[in-house]
């Protein structure tokens, strides 16, 4: 008999019903559509969206080349000529859109990884995607320049890393713990490649590469905006369609199965979507760390719900990256640093707080 007191005897009659008190609100369209609505998630999404708009306006309007906030609406529909137009359409516009898109893609990717691996540390970085992309960039950009464009190198490296992880778990993506450990090994190999390339190259080239390796959106154009927009157009609906099944997988594979989920197929599909989202992000911005890790965690704490909150994760990812990039552009102490460094610094400290809290609660 355990020492903990039981609040009621096992044969106690059912207490007075509190029925219906927490029945969910529904969003209905006709008889065919009924989706549960989580008020907290909606409210927080609104707040984060407002924050994102403010950060975006600041990004476009601060500094010497900024466009005054009051003339922004007009400028958006009819881009002015001259310096202001250049700022909007070439300098900061694409960069802002890429920050939003990359952040959103990373937020989605991280949310999917965390629910699939049932691990708050699950993220595309952990399974070697970022390190693989870095090695790909090092090889295509420095070792054999001109063979392939750098973004293609990033994509290939990321895909190669994921493939090795997939093959070496022995069970594909069905064994979450194995994915993470195989990812550690693949990351180590990819880092070794990168460091080797960095060490054999000239200082300036290597330094430039090191900047990219931290993840940077300093010089992106409309092509990058296109890539990330296509990525999101593919991944958002897919992730949304998978999310009800993923919530059931959180109950354990056997029970999810008993509730009618195709567990392995759903998990594999979710990881593929997560990998595509992260690969799109890494292609345009390089390996930006910690956004995918932190955005879903913050989202979960804001909604106070165990369910996957894709939309809020995406919005938070976008907000984190836009704010970090704003700092990289405007804060004197951060100027010239790649945005990935700022996200890593903030994310690392957040990760520490998270881990310490988890084990204090005795759950790890």
């Amino acid at each position, binding site marked *: *008999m*355990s020492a*903990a007191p*039981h*609040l*009621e*005897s*096992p*044969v*106690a*009659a*059912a*207490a*007075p*019903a*509190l*029925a*219906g*008190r*927490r*029945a*969910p609100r*529904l969003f209905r369209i006709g008889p*065919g*559509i*009924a*989706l*549960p609505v989580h008020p907290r998630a909606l409210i927080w999404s609104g707040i984060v969206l407002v924050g994102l708009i403010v950060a975006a306006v600041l990004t476009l309007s601060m500094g010497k080349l900024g466009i005054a906030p009051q003339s922004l609406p007009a400028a958006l529909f009819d881009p002015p000529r001259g310096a202001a137009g250049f700022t909007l359409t070439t300098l900061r516009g694409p960069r802002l859109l890429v920050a939003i898109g990359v952040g959103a893609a990373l937020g989605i990717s991280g949310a999917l990884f965390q629910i699939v691996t*049932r691990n708050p540390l699950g993220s595309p970085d952990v399974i070697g995607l970022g390190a693989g992309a870095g090695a790909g960039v090092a090889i295509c950009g420095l070792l054999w320049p001109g063979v392939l464009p750098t973004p293609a190198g990033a994509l290939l490296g990321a895909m190669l890393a994921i493939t090795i992880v997939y093959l070496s778990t022995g069970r594909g993506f069905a064994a979450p713990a194995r994915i993470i450990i195989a990812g550690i090994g693949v990351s180590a190999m990819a880092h070794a490649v990168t460091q080797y390339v960095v060490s054999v190259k000239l200082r300036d080239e290597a330094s430039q590469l090191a900047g990219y390796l931290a993840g940077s959106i300093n010089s992106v154009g409309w092509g990058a905006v296109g890539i990330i927009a296509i990525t999101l157009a593919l991944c958002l609906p897919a992730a949304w*369609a998978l999310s*009800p099944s993923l*919530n*059931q997988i*959180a*109950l*354990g*594979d*056997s*029970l999810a*199965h*008993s*509730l*009618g*989920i*195709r567990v392995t197929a759903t998990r594999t599909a979710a990881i593929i979507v997560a990998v595509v989202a992260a690969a799109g992000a890494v292609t345009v911005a390089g390996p930006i760390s910690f956004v995918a890790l932190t955005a879903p965690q913050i989202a*979960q704490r804001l909604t*106070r*719900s*165990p369910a996957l909150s894709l939309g809020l994760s995406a919005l938070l990812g976008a907000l984190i990256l836009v704010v970090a990039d704003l700092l990289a552009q405007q804060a004197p102490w951060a100027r010239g640093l790649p945005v990935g460094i700022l996200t890593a610094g903030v994310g690392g400290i957040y990760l520490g707080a998270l881990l310490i809290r988890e084990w204090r609660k005795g*759950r790890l």
Partner: protein
Amino acid sequence: MTPTPPGLRAHQLRVGYGSRTVLSDLSVTLPTGAFTAIIGPNGCGKSTLLKSLGRAIVPRAGAVTLDGTDLASLRPKVIARRLALLPQDPIAPDTIRVRDLVARGRHPYHSLLRQWAPGDTEAVDRALAETGVTHLADRFVSELSGGQRQRAWVALVLAQDTDYVLLDEPTSFLDISHQIDLLHRCQDMRSAGKTVVAVLHDLNQAARYADHLVVMHEGAIVAEGTPADVLSADLVREVFALPAEITIDPQSGSPLIVPLARV
């Protein structure tokens, strides 16, 4: 396949993990509307049989049929509306409340655009009430005691509203009063018309509370029938390697296994 009578049946099942075969050529019919207990010594394949019946393990050969239909030919959600399996180690997500956990049992009735079905609220309320956890509905699952948590899981399975309920060692890690309570719930489900199948460890509990026993030994079924028919001193000695005497439970009249004193 020959025409099959209604109910849950296994036909010449072969199941294994890696290079190890656990069950081979196993056939069994589970009596409809009864509470069946699967018993046997550790490692005899009880849980494997239960999981195979619930399609949590795909057999290498043979089939599981439900009212004559091969489960392999049905969509997972269709199966999930008829047959529920509570595994031994389900995972409660962080920060989930009891009501939300129980509501997860309604998933088989949902679709992508209809994530709330008519009758969900009633089914969840009924399941909470039947397992006596209505007053805990707004508590976090992580705050519950072991017995309360197990009842929340049973409530989830009840909310799934299936004719067949399979439970994998539902009494492990519960103290004795909660074990008995859970077995009463199994009897209640049976009385409500469900077919209940549970893997149980305790022979005397199985003998007293179940209507039907399936006794397994080394991957094969060695006996099945009512407790009074099945349990004999010879069987207990051979299957469980336990010299014992069978007497009568003074409370229920069911067989009671009493290990022999050492000589």
